[in-house]
C-alpha cells in the first residue's frame, strides 16, 4: 500500500509550476530540414514527414512541456520502457513520437487500433512512424492473440524500442480517465514476471489539451450520432478544423515507475519455474491482481500529472448554473469569474496542477479561455451564453427535441471540460455526497456509503482496487484542509464555513446521481426483464429526453451514451444485471429487486447502517 503513496507522491513532484516550452525553437522556425533529418538511433525513420503539416498546425500554436529528458533517455538504455499516455485525442498518437524524435530518444512502437491502418497513405505513414495495428475485439481468436502477444513480448524482451500503448484502451470521449484494459498490460508485464527482463520501466504520460480537436465530434458521438469512419478523405476534409485555434497542449512525463519495485511482494516469480515459459498459461489470480493494480495506478498517476486549465474550472462553474440561465438569460460574467476564482483556490488547496498564467490579469485569462472555446460559449454584454449550434436555415422551425439536442451537445462539451478537473475533486466530492445523502457523521457509516458510491460509479471514477479506505482517508483529510469538515477519530462533521465547498462538491456528483437514478428507474419500472444494450441506450435516451423536456430532469448528461454504458457495466459488476448466455445478441437479464435496492440506497432511502452488513458494498 505504501507503494501507491510513493507513486502518487511521485507525480506531485516538487518541480514547481514551471513549464518549459521545449519545442520553442521548432515552433519559431519550422523547416522541412528538421523533419527530413535522419537519425541513426533507430531503424525507424521516425519523423512523420507528411504528418508534420497536420501535426504542427495543431501543436505549434503553443506547446509547453515539462520534461525530464535525461531521465527518460537513461531509462531507455537500462530497461525496456513502456510509455503510457492517456488518450484524449487522435493527436496523442503522434505527439509523443514527435517529442522523442526531437530529443533524440528512440521513437516508440505504438499499439494502435486497426481502423487507422485501413486509411490510405496515412496508415502507411503511421506504420512508418512506429505504429503496429491491433484489432479491438480479439474475442476468441487464439492465434491472433498469440501472435500479438508474442510480438509485444518480443519487443519488450529484446528492448527493440520503447513501446507506447494506451492503458485505457480507447480514446476517452468524455476526457475522463477510464478503467484500464488489462490485456495489453499483461503482455507487457509478462516478460518481467517470467524473469526474461530485469525490470520494466513504465512512464505514465499525461496529455492535457486546452481545447480538444474532436470536441464536438465526441459530443455527437455520445448523443448517439455514429462516429465517422477514419478515412484519408475525411481526414483531408477535416483539415479546416486545423485552421482554428486550439490553445495549448501539455505533455507531462510522470516519474518512471519501476515494475520490479512496484511488484515486490505482490508477485511470486517462482510460480513460472515449473513449466516452460513459452507455454501459454492463464495468468494466476496473483498476477491478475497485480497487473490490474499497476494499471489502475498508472491511470491515477496520469490523472495526477495532468494539467488543469482555467477553462476547465469555468466549465465546472457553468455546469452548476441552471441550464435555462445559460441558454436564455445568460450568466453574469462577474458572477462566473468570481466563482471561478474561488474554485481556483480550492483546486490549489487540493494540490492539483493548475495552469493559470501568473502575469496576466485573472479576467484576461478567463476571457481568453472563453474566446478559445467560442464553439461552446460566447460572451455578450457582460453575460455568458451557451452556443447553440447553428444549422443552415430551415424551412420549418426546429422542434423542441432538436433544440434540446443542440443544447445537449454544448452541455456535453462543457461536461467533458469539467471532467478534466474532476479527478481532483472526485474523492472529496463522494464523501460530501455521502455526508449529504446519509445525513450521518459517523465515519464508518460514511465509509460504507463511500464504498457503495465508488462501486456504483466504478466505471465513472477510476479507483485503485483494494485501496478504498486509503482514498477515503485522503478525501477526508482534503476536506479538512479546505476547511470544509472537521475530522475526528469517529466522525466527519461539516464545518460552518465549509458549506460552499461541500455544496459545490455535491453539485459536481449530482448530475451523475440524477442520471443513474433515471436509468435505474427505467430498468425497474419500464424496461423489460431482458434487453439488449442497444435497446437500453435508445430507451433511456428517449426517457431522458422526455423528462428533460417536461422539466423533471435537469441534467443533460443522462443523454450521454458513455454514462449509460458505464451504468450497465457497473450493474453487471454488482450482479444486478447478468448477461444471458442463451442468445447471440448481447442480452441482459435485469434483477429488478437488486436494481431497486441500489436506487434506494442511492437516494438515501436505505440507511447506511444497512450497508455495513456488506462491507465491500456489494449488493
Amino acid at each position, binding site marked *: 500500500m505504501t507503494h501507491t503513496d510513493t507513486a502518487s507522491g511521485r507525480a506531485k513532484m516538487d518541480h514547481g509550476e514551471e513549464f518549459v516550452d521545449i519545442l520553442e525553437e521548432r515552433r519559431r522556425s519550422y523547416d522541412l530540414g528538421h523533419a527530413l533529418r535522419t537519425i541513426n538511433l533507430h531503424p525507424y525513420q521516425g519523423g512523420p514527414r507528411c504528418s508534420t503539416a497536420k501535426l504542427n498546425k495543431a501543436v505549434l500554436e503553443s506547446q509547453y512541456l515539462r520534461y525530464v529528458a535525461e531521465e527518460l533517455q537513461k531509462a531507455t538504455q537500462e530497461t525496456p520502457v513502456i510509455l503510457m499516455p492517456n488518450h484524449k485525442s487522435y493527436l496523442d498518437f503522434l505527439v509523443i513520437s514527435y517529442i522523442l524524435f526531437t530529443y533524440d530518444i528512440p521513437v516508440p512502437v505504438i499499439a494502435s487500433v486497426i481502423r487507422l491502418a485501413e486509411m490510405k497513405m496515412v496508415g502507411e505513414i503511421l506504420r512508418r512512424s512506429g505504429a503496429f495495428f491491433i484489432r479491438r475485439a480479439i474475442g476468441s481468436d487464439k492465434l491472433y492473440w498469440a501472435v500479438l502477444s508474442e510480438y509485444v513480448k518480443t519487443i519488450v524482451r529484446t528492448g527493440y524500442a520503447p513501446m507506447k500503448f494506451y492503458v485505457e484502451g480507447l480514446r476517452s470521449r468524455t476526457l475522463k480517465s477510464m478503467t484500464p484494459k488489462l490485456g495489453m498490460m499483461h503482455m507487457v508485464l509478462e516478460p518481467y514476471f517470467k*524473469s*526474461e527482463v*530485469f*525490470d520494466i520501466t513504465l512512464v505514465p504520460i499525461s496529455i492535457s489539451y486546452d481545447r480538444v480537436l474532436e470536441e464536438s465530434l465526441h459530443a455527437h458521438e455520445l448523443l448517439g450520432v455514429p462516429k465517422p469512419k477514419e478515412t484519408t478523405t475525411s481526414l483531408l476534409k477535416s483539415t479546416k478544423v486545423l485552421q482554428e485555434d486550439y490553445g495549448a497542449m501539455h505533455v507531462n512525463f510522470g516519474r518512471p515507475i519501476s515494475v520490479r519495485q512496484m511488484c515486490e511482494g505482490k508477485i*511470486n*516469480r*517462482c*510460480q*513460472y*519455474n515449473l513449466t*516452460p*515459459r*513459452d507455454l501459454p498459461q492463464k495468468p494466476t489470480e496473483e498476477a491478475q491482481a497485480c497487473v490490474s493494480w499497476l494499471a489502475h495506478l498508472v491511470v491515477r498517476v496520469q490523472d495526477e500529472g495532468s494539467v488543469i486549465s482555467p477553462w476547465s474550472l469555468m466549465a465546472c462553474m457553468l455546469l452548476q448554473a441552471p441550464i435555462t440561465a445559460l441558454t436564455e438569460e445568460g450568466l453574469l460574467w462577474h458572477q462566473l469569474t468570481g466563482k471561478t476564482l474561488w474554485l481556483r483556490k480550492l483546486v490549489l488547496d487540493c494540490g492539483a496542477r493548475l495552469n493559470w498564467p501568473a502575469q496576466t490579469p485573472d479576467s484576461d485569462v478567463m476571457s481568453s479561455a472563453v474566446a478559445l472555446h467560442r464553439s461552446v460559449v460566447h460572451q455578450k454584454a457582460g453575460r455568458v451564453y451557451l452556443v447553440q449550434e447553428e444549422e443552415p436555415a430551415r424551412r420549418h422551425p426546429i422542434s423542441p427535441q432538436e433544440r434540446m439536442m443542440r443544447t445537449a451537445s454544448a452541455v456535453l462539451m462543457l461536461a467533458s471540460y469539467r471532467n478534466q478537473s474532476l479527478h481532483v475533486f472526485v474523492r472529496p466530492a463522494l464523501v460530501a455526497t455521502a455526508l449529504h445523502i446519509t445525513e450521518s457523521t459517523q465515519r464508518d457509516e460514511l465509509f460504507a456509503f463511500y464504498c457503495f458510491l465508488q462501486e456504483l460509479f466504478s466505471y465513472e471514477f477510476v479507483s485503485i482496487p483494494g485501496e478504498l479506505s486509503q482514498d477515503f482517508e485522503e478525501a477526508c483529510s482534503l476536506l479538512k484542509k479546505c476547511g470544509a469538515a472537521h475530522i475526528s477519530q469517529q466522525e466527519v462533521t461539516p464545518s460552518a464555513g465549509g458549506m460552499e465547498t461541500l455544496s459545490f462538491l455535491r453539485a459536481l456528483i449530482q448530475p451523475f446521481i440524477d442520471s443513474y437514478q433515471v436509468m435505474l428507474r427505467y430498468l425497474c419500472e419500464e424496461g423489460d426483464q431482458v434487453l439488449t444494450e442497444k435497446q437500453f441506450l435508445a430507451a433511456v435516451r428517449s426517457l431522458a429526453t422526455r423528462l428533460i423536456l417536461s422539466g423533471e430532469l435537469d441534467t443533460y448528461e443522462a443523454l450521454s451514451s458513455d454514462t449509460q454504458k458505464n451504468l450497465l457495466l457497473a450493474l453487471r459488476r454488482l450482479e444486478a444485471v447478468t448477461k444471458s448466455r442463451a442468445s447471440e445478441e448481447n442480452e441482459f437479464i435485469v434483477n429488478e429487486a437488486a436494481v431497486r435496492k441500489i436506487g434506494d440506497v442511492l437516494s438515501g432511502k436505505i440507511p447506511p447502517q444497512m450497508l455495513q452488513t456488506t462491507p465491500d458494498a456489494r449488493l
Partner: protein
Amino acid sequence: MAANGSGGGSDRQRVAQQRLRIIAGHLRRPADEDSAVRAAECKAPQSESDASAEGKTVPRRRQEIMKWNGWGYNDTKFIFNKKGQTEFTGKRYRLSGMILPGLQDWFENTFGASVHHKSPATNILNSSAVQPPNLNEAFVEELKSTGVPFSHDAEDRVFRANGHCLHEIFPLREGKIGRVPDTVVWPNCHNDVVKIVELACKHNVCLIPFGGGTSVSSALECPLEETRSIVSLDTSQMNRILWIDEKNLTAHVEAGIIGQDLERLLNESGYCTGHEPDSMEFSSLGGWVATRASGMKKNVYGNIEDLVVHIKMVTPQGVIEKSCQGPRMSTGPDIHHFILGSEGTLGLVTEVTMKIRPVPAYQKYGSVVFPDFEQGVACLREVARQRCAPASIRLMDNKQFQFGHALKPQGSSMFTSFLDGLKKFYITKFKGFDPNRLCVATLLFEGDREKVLQHEKQVYDIAAKFGGLAAGEDNGQRGYMLTFVIAYLRDLGLDYYVIAESFETSVPWDRVLDVCRNVKARIVRECKERGVQFSPLSTCRVTQTYDAGACVYFYFAFNYRGLSDPIHTFEQVEHAAREEILANGGSLSHHHGGGDRFKIKRLLIKRRRRVGVNDAAVITGCILTSKRWPGHPEPRGEEVILRSPRHVLTASPSRKLMGESSIYQPCTSSANTLPRPYHRSAGPLPYPVFHVPTSICQGKPLRLRTACHRVKLILGLYNVSSVLGPPLGARHCPPTVWLHRAPTSLSLYLHRGHCTQETENMT
C-alpha cells in the same frame, strides 16, 4: 587387493611416529590434563601401503601448514610489492613466485580501492581469546579409555570452528573468535568413529564432523544456542586407500582423504577418480559425499553421485551400508540418495567405494573467444545438445575475462608480448570483437590422443557457428589455474577493504541468460541501494553443462570503505541475489550444499505449501535445491513445526505403521518430548516418506540446524536418530530427514550398534 601387500609393520611404525610427534608437541606447550592427547592404534581392517603413509598433506595439527584466518597454505599468498606489482609467494603452485604486472591496476580500477588503504588481518592467533572448553567429563573419561586421540588445545579448536564463508573469515581476521568446539577428536578408522558416535549418544554431546574445512555454507559454525559440549570429529587421519580393485575399477577409500592426496596416490597406481572440485586441494572425500559435490571434469567422470559405488555411514543408531556393490539396484529408494547431500545431519560417512579410471593418455587445454556472452551460451547449449562436451567447458563473461587477463604473469620475452599484441589486434580490429563485450570459453579435453584431437575439432566447429575463434591453449590453462588461486585472491582483497564471495546455481538452459543478467543487475542495484560507495564487481561464468541445463557460478565483490557493518550489507546483498536466482528458476545450489541457505528455502515453502495430499509428507530438502528424493515425483505436504528444539518428533519403531492414524508418539526415552502428536490422514503411506521438520523457537524462527542437532532421526525400522551435529567435512544440516517405513526388501543391512547375532542372521 593391491593394498594388502604390505605388512602391518609399517602401520605400527607410522602410528608410533605419529604418537611421538603428538607427545613431543604437547611436551613443548604446557597444557592442563584435559588437553592430553592420546594416541591409539587403530585396528583398521587393512593396513595401508607405504605410499599412502607418505602421501599425507594435512597433518593432525593443521596449524603447521595452514592459515588460521584465510585460505590455504601458510606460505602462499598474494602481495602488492613496493614496485607496484603483484607477487604470488611460496613454491606450491605454477603461479608461485611469479610477478603479475596487471593485477594492481585492475584491482584499483575495478573496486576504486587503493594500495594505501590497508585493512590487514590479525596475524597471531591469541589463544587467550578462546573460551575455555565446556567439557562433558563423563564423555571425556570414556573417550580416553577408547584410545582415540583428542585435544582441548585452543588452536586445535579454533582451526575447526569455521569454514570459508565471508562472515566466518571476516571476524577471524579482526581477531574475534566466537564459539569454538570444546574437543577435537581424530578417529583413525571406521571403528573409532563408531565408538565416538556411540559415546556421543550416550553422553549427549554434540558432534560436528570436520573433513577438509572448506565449507562455504556455515556448516562448521558452532551453533550459539548449543549448550552441550561440542566435539569436532576431524576425519583427516582417516586418509588411506584401503584397496584398489582393478577388475571392477573401484577403490575403497577412507572418507577423510583429501582430494589431492587421493588423486596423487591413485595416479601412482595408474588410476584416477577424475573428481576435481575446485577445492580438491583441501576438501575431503566424505565432504564430497555429504554435500553432493561436483567436479570440473564431470562430463567424463560424472558427479560424486555417479562415482560412488558404496558408502559406509555411521549413524547414532548404527552403521548403514548396502550389502553388495552391484552397479544398480531397484529394491526401493536408493539408500545412497539420502546419504548424498545429507550434510552430516544423518550420520558420518567413514568409507567409500569409488569408481576409478586409468589415467588419461592425453590432456589438452583450449579456449574460444566469442563476440558476446549470448553467443557463448548458445554455443555451450549446442555442445550440450550434441552431447559432445569436453571433460570441462566453462564460459566466462566479459568482466571475468578481463579479470583473468589481469592475472597474466609477466611475459617471458619480448616475442610473447609482441605475439599477444598481434592476437589482440586480430580479434578486436580484424574480427571486430568489442573488448568490452567479448567472452571466453575454456576447454579441457581428455582421453586418447586421436580421440581428443577429433573431439577438439568437433567442438571448435560448433564454436565457429556461433562466431567463436580458437584462442589457444594458454588462455585455457590460465582459466583453470584461476580456480585454485581465486580463494587466495579473496584474502588479498580483504587486505584492502574489498570483500568477495562466490555462489552457484543450476538452471534450465532457457533461463541461463536471464539468470546471469538479472542476478548481476540485482547485485549492482542492491549494492547501490545499501550505500556501497563504489560500484561492485558482479560477474559470472557457466561452469557445467547438462542435457537440461547448466551450472552458473557468480562472483561478487565490492569495496566496503565507508560502510559501518560491511558483513551485514554483504549478507543482505547475497540474500537478495539468491532470492533473484530462485525467482529466475535457478536452484539454491548446484554443488556447494544447502547449509544455512535452507533458511531462505523455508520461507518459500511457507508461501507455496501444498496441503491436502497425504499430509504425512513434508519434503523440503528436495524442493528447492537440486536434490530430489527418489520415489517422489513431487514434494507434497505441509510443514511440521517444532515448537522448540527440545521437542522432537519420533516414530515408534515398535508399531506397525500401515493404516494407522497416528504414527508418532512421544519419545520418552530421552529428555525430548513431543509437542504434539503428528497425525496423518488414513490410508497407506505412499512409500517411505521423508519428513523434514522446520522449527520455530518461542515464536522466533530458529536456525534449522539447531533443531537438527537435537532432533532425533528415524530411519524406518532402523530407528536411526541423529545427535550428530553439522555435517562431515562441510556445511550445515538441511532439515532432518524422516523415513518412517523402510521397504522390506531394501538391500542394506544394519548393524545395531555393533554387529549382533540378529544382523548377521539377516545377511
